[in-house]
């Protein structure tokens, strides 16, 4: 099982994290549209961690089995947490002056999106599923 961890401290780490995810997706035979979806979702999540928590960690794991290619991405931080998770997932909601399309968009790009947040710990998980080639 391939496993990659990217520490998130500065904005160049966002680029490194999404490139690592794209590479793994390409290696597992995901098409270019799925590669782009995954890289974009990871870009949003890792930026959130750096922006709101100052730092965090992104772990990418190949969880493929039999016929199915599976990539699991977990982004974790120890920042203030998200006060209202439901609200944060609404399109257009933002506390940073952004477009408010980040989290709500990520949910639409990936499978099995799970977000847990409390003060001091936020963990977001998503999966990308495809047919093994």
């Amino acid at each position: 099982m391939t496993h990659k961890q990217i520490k998130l401290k500065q904005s160049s780490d966002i680029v490194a994290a999404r490139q690592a995810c794209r590479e793994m997706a390409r290696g597992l035979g995901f098409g270019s549209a799925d590669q782009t979806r995954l890289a974009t979702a990871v870009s949003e999540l890792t930026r959130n961690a750096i922006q709101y928590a100052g730092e965090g960690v992104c772990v990418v794991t190949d969880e493929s089995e039999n016929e199915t290619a599976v990539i699991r991405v977990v982004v974790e931080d120890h920042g203030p947490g998200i006060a209202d998770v439901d609200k944060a997932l609404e399109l257009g909601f933002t506390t940073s002056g952004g477009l408010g399309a980040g989290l709500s968009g990520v949910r639409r790009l990936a499978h099995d999106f799970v977000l847990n947040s409390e003060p001091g710990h936020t963990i977001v998980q998503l999966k990308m599923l495809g047919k093994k080639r």
Partner: protein
Amino acid sequence: MKVAILKLRGILLTSIPIDMNDEDAMAFQADVLRMLSDTEATGLVIDITAMNVVDSYMARVINDTAVQAGMLGAQVVLCGMQPDVALTLIEMGRELIGVETALNLDQAFNRLETMIEEREA
């Protein structure tokens, strides 16, 4: 990493690199506006052929740059968006890119020339 901004017949031309980080993006925005002001260019083409990811942050930087350039009197066309990027942006949310767009550089220049003529008429 500095993004080159070229001037061609009163139009500024710039191409965003593949791995632009957030600081580079803010510097790019400031450079474009300064150069528009210095050169009195009437048009701006932002080429994103190299970008294989445009997330909501980069979308906002691009939109803001276009609006700011408009405030300085320039017409703006975005070109070169990869099909996968267009697909992803729409899946994320419809309002992400609110700029005039063209398929490639050739069409962007044609479009921009028409926009500038219409404005001056």
